């Protein structure tokens, strides 16, 4: 008797309870590895590359592309890899996972309006990315009948604002739930950033533009390390109880051009060097905006960080994203009055805020977190050295 493994549509965040299967990247008989992207699912926020959670051989695909299904729906069945007997994995299964060319959100939207499969279009943009004009060219080439059929498909939102409205609705639903269920408390602290900025400037000075580190990466690292002292802020509140997370998976709030935001995770931030973290951050922002996020990034952040960036408001008091129990906000980094050893002077400051869940922690623990965060940011070199694996490759490269 063979063990059949069910592959169901995973939850891709608190604001998603259904998704439309856009395409399968595997077919029955294919061997799959845990973590491999096997399907693309459209949520109200973005097209997400859905990864499989178990090794196996695809037995049956149960949902047709174009179908909208609730979270938890059986998408496919797999067989255990060792129960396939003599079947050798096909060479194709050993090849690198299919890499989808990037499709800009505006191109993706246009593709939906015109009934074009953006993943089948030859991209002429940067690094082969598919642009809006590629989509329009592809639509021109489509036989008329196909086009009409596609544009009148009931599941295809026809209005240009459809995606934006759906995303706004999804954000509203998740945030309403958060405010209804989570007793939030809020703390705020001004953090001097002179040492951190001087250190970054020094570090970036001789580096080519491709290897420079942004202060955003330093802030994420500081949050990850500070959380190790206050585990009550890092984890999930499920079924009436708090479940701490062993790693710090930071959901990074990323504003999408044209409105809306997503907060996909960078995994185990406390184990990354600053250079690795910067690469991960840059990659995540790029993919979030191109609409190619992975399911694991959407489903498991253990805390969210929102960074307003330069030229913005001074502080942000965020709403916790369930089932997480805290959110850290950074306002704009700017020179402001500061008293240092009895002297008033101008100092680059950033306002760090904490929104946390009173069911799990209280203000005392929250304040300890902000104090630790402030201390870490005064010692940027230590911050850079702590936690990262003992690889000094980033220092050795020319």
């Amino acid at each position, binding site marked *: 008797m063979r063990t059949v493994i069910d592959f169901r549509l995973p939850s891709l965040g608190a604001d998603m309870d259904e998704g439309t299967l856009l395409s399968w990247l595997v077919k029955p008989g294919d061997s799959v590895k845990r973590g491999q992207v096997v399907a693309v699912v459209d949520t109200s926020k973005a097209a997400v590359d859905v990864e499989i959670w178990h090794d196996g051989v695809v037995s049956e695909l149960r949902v047709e592309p174009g179908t909208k299904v609730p979270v938890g729906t059986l998408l496919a069945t797999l067989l255990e890899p060792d129960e396939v007997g003599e079947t050798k994995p096909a060479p194709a299964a050993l090849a690198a996972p299919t890499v989808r060319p990037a499709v*800009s959100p505006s191109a993706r939207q246009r593709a939906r309006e015109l009934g074009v499969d953006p993943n089948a279009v030859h991209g002429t943009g940067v690094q082969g990315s598919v642009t*809006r004009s590629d989509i329009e060219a592809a639509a021109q080439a489509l036989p008329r009948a196909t086009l009409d059929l596609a544009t009148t498909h009931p599941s295809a939102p026809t209005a240009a604002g459809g995606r934006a409205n759906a995303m706004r609705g999804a954000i509203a639903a998740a945030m309403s739930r958060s405010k209804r269920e989570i007793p939030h408390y809020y703390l705020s602290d001004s953090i001097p950033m002179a040492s951190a900025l001087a250190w970054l400037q020094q570090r970036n000075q001789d580096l080519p533009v491709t290897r420079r580190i942004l202060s955003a990466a330093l802030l994420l690292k500081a949050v990850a390390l500070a959380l190790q002292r206050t585990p009550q802020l890092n984890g999930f509140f499920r079924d009436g109880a708090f479940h701490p997370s062993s790693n710090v998976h930071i959901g990074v709030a990323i504003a999408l*051009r044209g409105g809306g935001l997503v907060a996909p995770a960078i995994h185990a931030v406390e184990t990354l060097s600053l250079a690795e973290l910067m690469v991960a951050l840059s990659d995540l922002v790029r993919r979030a905006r191109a609409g190619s996020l992975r399911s694991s990034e959407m489903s498991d952040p253990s805390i969210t960080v929102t960074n307003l960036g330069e030229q913005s408001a001074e502080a942000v008091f965020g709403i916790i994203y369930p089932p997480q129990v805290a959110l850290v906000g950074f306002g704009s980094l700017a020179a402001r009055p500061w008293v240092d050893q009895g002297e008033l002077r101008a100092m680059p400051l950033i306002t760090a805020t904490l929104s946390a869940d009173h069911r799990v922690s209280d203000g005392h623990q929250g304040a300890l977190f902000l104090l630790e965060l402030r201390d870490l940011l005064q010692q940027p070199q230590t911050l850079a050295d702590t936690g990262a694996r003992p690889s000094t490759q980033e220092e050795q490269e020319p």
Partner: protein
Amino acid sequence: MKPDQPELLNQIVALLQTIAPELEAETLSAGRPLRQQVDLDSMDWLNFLIGVHQRFKIDIPEADYAQLISVNDVVDYVSARLT
């Protein structure tokens, strides 16, 4: 051969459009602060400079960021460093 200024401007706007696909060249005001006008955050800005660096093979030290305010500044900066 070194491209002339209008051609440089076209190429730089094209690089901006890879980051801000909704940007229309006609609406870009050459003298206004670029980051505000196109709504570029620090990551967008870095990616734009990486694009400029790769396209024109020039180095842009962090210390020079302050000179790069408007799209005209970027064109002048690149032009001065091309041979």
